[in-house]
């Protein structure tokens, strides 16, 4: 099968000569659910943000659905981003807008600039957005303002926004790092179920190894900007996790306990 995303020799140099990413190679097949694990500062966030160029990579090639991401011009990049959903640690919603509007923001990438600015979303998009919200259990919050929701609910809105894009790939950057264990499970379930049902490939940055093992079909371990493990989740032995988190062992589980 044709991979939907290939990354070759991806490097990111921050100013002052520090390398955030130090030559990453990664291939994502359609429908895969991949957890990216590693200690904080390993470059997980940078990796995800390079894929849709929220951060400009310094070197390397990224190919998404046969299109070159790094060399894409403004219009091409917009179309690439529209087909890549993203979920953020801090939800990144527009809190003074309604839940429904926040989900509909996922459609902006497909709309004309002016129609999007005026918020002329097609009726079908609105119905689908509401259906998505119903599916994650937010049917009673559709018209509420986003700042009225709890953390777990906000993140489910974030998930719906990404799903509204009808993406081929979802990038989730620490989606549960700010949530309690119960909300974490609801959010991870929402991401996992929807991705599996709709055949969306997913890359999830996770702090917690136990969550990674529970949900992912494949795990990628990153340390100091390099891939040090890439394989099915049952092959991730405790030796490898220990090596991965060497010196930062306390990070493996502490977030889940908050």
């Amino acid at each position, binding site marked *: 099968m044709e991979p939907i995303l290939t990354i070759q020799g991806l490097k990111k140099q921050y100013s002052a000569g520090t390398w955030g990413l130090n030559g990453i190679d990664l291939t994502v097949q359609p429908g895969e659910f991949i957890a990216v694990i590693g200690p904080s500062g390993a470059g997980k966030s940078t990796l995800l943000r390079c894929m849709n160029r929220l951060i400009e990579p310094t070197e390397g090639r990224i190919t998404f659905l046969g299109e070159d991401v790094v060399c894409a011009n403004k219009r091409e990049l917009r179309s690439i981003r529209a087909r890549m959903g*993203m979920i*953020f640690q801090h939800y990144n*919603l527009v809190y003074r807008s309604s839940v429904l509007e926040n989900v509909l923001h996922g459609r*902006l990438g497909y709309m004309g600039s002016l129609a999007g*600015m*005026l918020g002329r979303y097609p009726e079908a998009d609105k119905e689908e957005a509401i259906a998505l919200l119903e599916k994650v259990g937010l049917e009673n919050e559709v018209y509420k303002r986003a700042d009225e929701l709890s953390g777990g609910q906000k993140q489910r809105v974030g998930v719906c926004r990404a799903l509204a894009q009808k993406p081929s790939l979802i990038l989730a950057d620490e989606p549960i790092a700010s949530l309690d264990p119960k909300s974490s499970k609801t959010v991870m379930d929402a991401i996992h179920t929807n991705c599996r049902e709709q055949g969306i490939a997913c890359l999830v940055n996770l702090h917690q190894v136990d969550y990674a093992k529970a949900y992912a079909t494949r795990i990628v371990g990153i340390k100091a900007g390099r891939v040090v493990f890439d394989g099915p989740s049952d092959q991730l032995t405790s030796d490898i996790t220990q090596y991965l988190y060497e010196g930062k062992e306390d990070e493996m589980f502490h977030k889940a306990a908050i």
Partner: protein
Amino acid sequence: MMKLTKIPGGSQARRKRRGRQWAAGTALLLLTVLSLVYIRFDAAEFLLGIPTFLRFLFSDFLPPDPTNLQSYLKPVADTFIYAVIATFCSSLLGVCLALLMARTTTPHPLVRTVLRGLISFLRNIPFLAWASLLVVIFGVGTTAGLIALIVFGCGFLARLYAESIEELDQDSMEALESCGATYGQRIKHAIIPQFLPAFYSWTLFMFEINIRASAVLGLVGAGGIGALIKQTMDLFQYGKTSMVIAIMVAMILMVELMTNRIRRRLI
């Protein structure tokens, strides 16, 4: 909790600080005295002037003379309308300039630098100076006053708006960027909703300033209620002057009451 740990050398530092405070206080006092001497301020003249002033106040100025009340209606309405138009225009222009000027939304850093320079130039010319200049260009009348208010308000608001925009949370901008939203869409859907409370607040504030400003515009020949003050004083009809001033104060108070109520409702 307050820290009560004694820091070594603390008393010395305190003595030093106190010394500096004394020095600053003395310098300020000296400066004031020297300035008074320089402008030849005469305390005796001031004190002897008080009875004259009181006589003027109570015999010529008060009570307000309401004879021509009806003819004041139009200038009062004019003043109010100037403020409305000026606030509306300068807030629209101000938002556009602010979006181009704010660090987080500027299309290019160069645009930001150029506009900031231009705006601070506009803003730092006092609006009465603007009004006087524009009276020379457009002649005595409403146009000059209105344009002066708009130019000044525009610079004032653009700067305040831009600062408010820079303080906004950037997370939602990032999220919309990741969805493939265009610049215009990001501004409309991520920036504008967050910016609205600050926008209302500053715009209402501008309206209050504009009401006061448009009331004095007449003094330089730019129309409105200020023209009445100048006219009546030139004719030594001080009773009428006090009537006009009373109307002006009432109008300003009413506007403040109104804006406060709107502010509470909106924010």
